[in-house]
């Protein structure tokens, strides 16, 4: 593995972090830092924006321009930030509750606009920070503190939802395959326009314990067993894909980006 000077990206004085032992969120953050390092982005030009949740704490630990906003609204804050200063590289960190329940509307509209944001959604199938309530990605039948008899709602397929809404890049990876995840993040960050990476991340504390996944190792094994690369998934019938996590690049295209279109408009009007 390529050596990365992690310390130079971390706010070491803010560590220890709040994440539980076995939480996947730190692995996603590490993959993000590795991707950023590979791209050679300068810390001063990076803004990392998050909402509320365990995932939302990530920006506090990295030495960028960091903004920890309200629950569900990180993408909306990031939209203002990016439009007011298009030279910033804006990364949004969000959770499944934050990004697709309370913040779902902002997500699909940001994708539609194709603004150059890099959204990374840490999907742990549960509301971690508030102690394990059901989320829009909790699988059918799984247990949560607010679904004590098993979840009776169908979950979202987030990556497909975002891909349908617009944007230029959509991918899904898991923390069990961190090298693959890093590659997906690298492609997402490089891509001009709206890009979205769904990172499957275990929450042993609020999800695993309640769902017969006793401990971080069992959760990793579960991720391994359930993930199917896109190329292989294409040859599988729908029933075979039930409960699987399809990984890889789901969407990659080059629609014109929002700030580019807007810049042309202002230029035409003599504004800048």
């Amino acid at each position, binding site marked *: 593995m390529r050596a990365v000077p992690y310390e130079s990206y971390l706010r070491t004085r*803010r560590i220890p972090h709040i994440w539980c032992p076995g939480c996947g969120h730190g692995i996603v953050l590490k993959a993000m830092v590795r991707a950023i390092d590979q791209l050679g982005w300068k*810390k*001063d*030009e990076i*803004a990392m*924006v998050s909402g509320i949740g365990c995932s939302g704490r990530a*920006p*506090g630990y990295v*030495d*960028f*321009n*960091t*903004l*920890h*906003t*309200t629950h569900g*609204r990180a993408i*909306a*804050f*990031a*939209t*203002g*930030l*990016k*439009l*007011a*200063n298009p*030279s*910033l590289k804006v990364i949004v960190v969000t959770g499944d509750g934050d990004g697709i329940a309370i913040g779902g*509307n*902002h997500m699909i*509209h940001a994708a539609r606009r194709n603004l150059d944001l890099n959204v990374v959604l840490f999907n742990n199938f549960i509301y971690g920070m508030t102690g394990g309530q059901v989320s829009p990605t909790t699988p059918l039948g799984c247990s949560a503190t607010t679904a004590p008899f098993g979840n009776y709602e169908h979950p979202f397929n987030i990556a497909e939802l975002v891909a349908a809404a617009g944007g230029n890049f959509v991918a899904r990876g898991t923390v069990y395959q961190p090298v693959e995840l890093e590659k997906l993040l690298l492609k997402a960050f490089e891509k001009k326009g709206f890009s979205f990476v769904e990172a499957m991340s275990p929450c042993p504390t609020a999800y695993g314990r309640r769902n017969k996944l006793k401990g971080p190792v069992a959760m990793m094994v579960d991720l391994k067993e359930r993930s199917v690369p896109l190329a292989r998934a294409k040859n599988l019938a729908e029933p075979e894909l039930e409960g699987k996590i399809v990984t890889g690049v789901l969407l990659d295209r080059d629609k014109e980006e929002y700030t580019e279109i*807007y810049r042309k*408009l*202002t230029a035409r*009007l*003599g*504004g*800048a």
Partner: protein
Amino acid sequence: METGKRPAPRLLTGNEAVAHAAIDAGARFFAGYPITPSSEIAETLSVLLPKAGGVFIQMEDEIAAMSAVIGAAIAGAKALTATSGPGFSLKQEAIGFACVTEVPCVIVNVMRGGPSTGLPTLPAQGDVMQARWGTHGDHPAVAVCPERVSEAYDLTLKAFDYSERLRTPVILLMDEVVGHVTEKAVLVPPDSATLPDLRKPVSPPEEYRPYRYSGQVPPPLVPFGQGYRYHVTGLLHDETGFPSNDTGNADRQVRWLMDKVERNRRLVTDFEAVDVEDAEVLLFAYGACARTAKAAMHMARSQGRKVGLFRPRTIWPFPYEELALAARNARVVVPVEMNLGQLSYEVSLAVCGKVPVKPLFKVGGEAVAPDELLTFIEGV
């Protein structure tokens, strides 16, 4: 603008005046969501901003609009949004975020009657208390309230000035009358050379603290991307900006937020006192009601009645002392509001039971008429 040369008067609405003032104040970012009776502000800025090299964006809802405004302000833009009652309710959580993170921005609320969808097209002053206490927790509030089109322009300029100096959201509360009436107004833009740049760093990055819970005003909020790399969070935080669970720090921070506005009352207090010295009946009115009050006062004076008017332009923080002084010789104070007495509580607090308060309220979406007020005055 060249000094000594007064611009020619022009005909425009209050909503248009707000849009022009925003541009003249240097605002280069607007995010909003359509809602009557404020939509003309967005429509006007959708023309003016791209031409000025600024950003106009219609968001998916008011929460997104308020959030985008705060994001833009953190990137260094002077930014605003505009809305009405239901949208103002939706913005409240983000307004609290701007208060605690000390991010300057301007929120225009062209009020309608409520609750809920209420009376979208008719005049009301339903959000006076929401402007003060709309978001949760102890927080500061600065709100200004124009009575005419020219003042909508002037107070928008001031709203940006207060907001930048105090690093706090400022609310421009208008009513439908001022928003929609077309009037002749002389718009005197500020000399852009004299607008202070309050975002310029005054210390090197290693020494920079985005917060300081003492002193007269906060340190500059340096825009993201200029090498300062700090943290902004809605969690209570220490002077470095990082979250803190320390109860002493929390106490200090929340008190600072409130004190910051109190300490700068001289800057933000703004009112008009007309014929108050000999007034037996002191009218208290703001926004469109003040126009009615002036007309009624004029009629009353011509009948020999000693009637005066106290009109706050800044309603939050409330000018308690100034009102008490104006009311000291009065026999009665008459607040006139297009709500059921939202600001009258503060009037009672200001006069402390020394002068009786006899209010006239209307909430049916009809403005108070001068005749009606005159009859009321005759009866008190």
